[in-house]
């Protein structure tokens, strides 16, 4: 048997009283792609941080390229030959692709802009990116473009091991093919290996030769591609069996009470003439490829868009779409609440505790004469946390200390707390593990069944197909198809989303 490119032996890491990693042992072979799956909070990100030199392990040993190593800094890991694409984007937002590439690469320093950009173009072309915007700071680009830029930066420098931490969560479905070829090329050119982390089993099956399953900071199983059995892996990930990825759909309501009426909505940034309605008890999905107006629609509905025409009625009240506060609460106990995609920047105040974040939008309900009553707040927050299944012991921990999935649950709890008539979910399950997703689907169904309406957008079409009563498909800033009941399938949604039939 050949020696592995990297061997991890008994890695452990604790943050305070939390043991993020207990005992991680695995071997990565040159020439292969290794997958790593596990729930949010299983310790995958901690492992990535150790491999990339961002943190040092408390216990255990790493052997890389035949010698024992301990990466004291990201620079050390990089120089040893480990290149990492982090889940949280980590290129410099104010710099262009070529500047970022140059910053990260060890090579000769190019002082001229032209030379630098030419070299960036050449590298990009080599890795299958034909057209790149060279003069724009990455921070102004879409998440997808930032992710591509980050991947390019990672492969631009010499490395033996490429670590990809959920690289596809921001990419389009079509980009996955590109990534697949890039991964293969990396392995061929560098005689290297790739560690690929994803929640998408389709990708894991397609990319990986070997899959490691991690739970609670331990690698519980390692299987070859041919032995990859989804139900069994899910069971290993969450430690119990899950009958189905999606809960049973609750039948849509019979008596249709109109909850939200959107009429001829147009915005300055590309939405034109969108009309639809939501009934009480309904879960309606918005589908569409990246950039077909779903962003603008959700912005407009949450009072943050540049609306030029049209209007939205919540029951009989016309919403003032230029005023997010009015949209959230046009009357007592009613309104439209949003769970945004960027939980880090828009959903939660990361430094605040779980308690403060959850009660933030409903302070009126827990205060008397403008003074917050701690007891009432405590009761409310605990009830909400119980509903979204977040450990109440974490109530006074900062949100930033929670795992990604739990952060998303807190954002969800905050939205549910408003008791709004309409809940808007913008890609609320992105980067969330299977177990948590299942929870969120249950919460959505639950919320709707209490006589509310839910409008959700998701990049994952299967999710929409399995959760929604009705699906509206966006294309070029307008709604081009409405699918109900039997008509809903991945195929029909996709066909409408790519504009087939027009």
């Amino acid at each position, binding site marked *: 048997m050949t020696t592995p490119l990297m061997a991890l032996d008994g890695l452990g890491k604790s943050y305070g009283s939390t043991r993020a990693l207990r005992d991680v042992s695995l071997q990565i072979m040159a020439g292969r792609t290794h997958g790593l799956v596990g729930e949010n909070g299983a310790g995958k990100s901690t492992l990535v941080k150790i491999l*990339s030199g*961002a943190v040092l392990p408390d216990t255990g040993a790493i052997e890389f390229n035949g010698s024992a190593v301990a990466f004291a*800094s*990201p*620079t050390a890991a*990089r120089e040893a030959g480990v290149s*990492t694409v*982090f889940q949280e*984007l*980590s*290129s*410099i*937002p*104010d*710099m262009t692709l070529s*500047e*970022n590439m*140059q*910053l*990260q690469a060890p090579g000769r*320093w190019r*002082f*001229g802009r032209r030379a630098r950009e030419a070299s960036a173009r050449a590298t990009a072309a*080599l*890795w*299958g*990116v*034909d*057209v*790149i*915007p060279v003069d*724009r700071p990455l*921070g*102004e*680009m*879409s998440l*997808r*473009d930032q992710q*591509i*830029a980050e991947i390019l*930066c990672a492969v631009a420098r010499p490395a033996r091991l490429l670590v990809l931490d959920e690289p596809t969560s921001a990419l389009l479905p*079509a*980009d996955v093919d*590109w990534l697949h*070829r*890039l991964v*293969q*090329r990396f392995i061929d050119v560098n005689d290297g290996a790739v560690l690929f982390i994803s929640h998408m089993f389709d990708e894991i099956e397609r990319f990986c030769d070997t899959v490691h399953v991690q739970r609670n900071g331990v690698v519980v199983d390692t299987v070859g591609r041919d032995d990859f059995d989804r139900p069994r892996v899910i069971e290993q990930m969450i430690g119990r069996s899950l009958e189905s990825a999606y809960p049973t759909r609750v039948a849509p309501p019979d008596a249709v009470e109109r909850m939200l009426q959107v009429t001829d909505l147009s915005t300055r940034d590309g939405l034109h003439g969108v009309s639809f309605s939501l009934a009480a008890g309904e879960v309606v999905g918005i589908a569409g490829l990246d950039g077909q107006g779903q962003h603008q629609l959700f912005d407009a509905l949450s009072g943050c868009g540049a609306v030029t025409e049209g209007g939205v009625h919540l029951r009989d009240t016309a919403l003032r779409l230029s005023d997010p506060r009015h949209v959230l609460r046009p009357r007592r106990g009613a309104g439209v609440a949003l769970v945004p995609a960027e939980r880090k920047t828009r959903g939660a105040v990361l430094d605040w505790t779980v308690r403060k974040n959850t009660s933030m939008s409903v302070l009126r309900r827990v205060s008397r004469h403008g003074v917050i009553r701690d007891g009432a707040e405590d009761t409310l927050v605990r009830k909400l946390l119980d509903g979204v299944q977040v450990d109440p012991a974490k109530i006074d921990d900062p949100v930033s200390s929670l795992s990604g999935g739990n952060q998303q649950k807190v954002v969800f709890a905050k939205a549910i707390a408003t008791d709004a008539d309409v809940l808007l979910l913008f890609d609320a399950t992105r980067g969330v593990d299977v177990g948590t997703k299942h929870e969120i689907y249950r919460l959505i169904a639950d919320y709707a069944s209490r006589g509310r309406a839910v409008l959700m957008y998701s990049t994952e079409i299967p999710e929409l197909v399995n959760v929604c009563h009705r699906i509206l498909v966006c294309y070029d800033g307008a709604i081009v198809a409405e699918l109900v009941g039997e008509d809903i399938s991945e195929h029909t949604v996709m066909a409408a989303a790519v504009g087939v039939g027009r």
Partner: protein
Amino acid sequence: MTTRLIHLAGNSLTVPAAFVLTLLVVYVAWAPAVVTTDLWGFTIVDASLALAFTAAGLAIAVLVGGLDLSCAGVIALTNATVTVLYGPGPTQQILSVLAAVAIGVAAGIVNGSLVHYFGLEPVVVTLATGFVLSGCALLVLPTPRGVTDVEGFSVLDVISSSTLGVPMGLLLLVALVLSWLAFRRSRWGSRLMAVGSDAVAAANSGVPVGTTRILGFAIAGGLYGTAGVVLTSQISGGDTQLGAGYLLAAFAAVVIGGVRLGGGQGSVIGAVLGAVAVTVMVNVVFILGLATYWSTIARGLILVAALLVQALLVMVARRAQSHSTFVLGGVR
């Protein structure tokens, strides 16, 4: 043509440059006499020289992600130090100037280290070191006095001199701008911007964040020290009260110069233009013959106007931006 205009709108130097030009036009229109005299070099270049160095230093501190309030203290202390140490003989003169720069660099290293190693807020740290330095200045020079007169060659005189009609101050400014251009394109310059833009991302990109931050504060301190030397040369003496005036003026210069106070965006050239703008603004308000309270109000209004134009231009540039995006092909 349109794209060129948009590029111009997106450039952070457009506003400070336009601002300086406008003020100069107003200035010359009101007082054409200044153009013909030696006063020209003095009123524009020399009068803004010390502020330009201070603003350049502050810009670097701000770019690396730290609001630096210590500049007033550094200027006061270095002004006092040069005044006391200065004397006959080029060696002593040069040593006193170097001492001033060294004091600034040392103060910057202390600031940067406190910020980085102990995670303290830059504003608080530099406020504190600023106090300490101002106090030290009084220790060194309790009462204002002149620099010891020097027979023959004097370094301080050279700074305020002009050769072939070109003021030395202008050469110093050009040198400052050129150094910045070179630094900005260097590895460390790039790291400086990266840390100010996003420190965590910079660390993940392999940037030594601590060293970079300390370097930034140190360069800033060195430039404040240089400003102290320039000030000493121009007033031929030391007065510990003068440093305080530079703090807010430098902030105004940096802001007008298009440097983002959050860090990571802007340039020293902008800050230098901003310093010139602030100086000319004071002169313009003066020659307009406004009463003191009007001149103070006018200064505030002009500042807000500069910021508004900047914000508008950014909006224009944003809106006009092409939505180019990555196009993927095959990997060979």
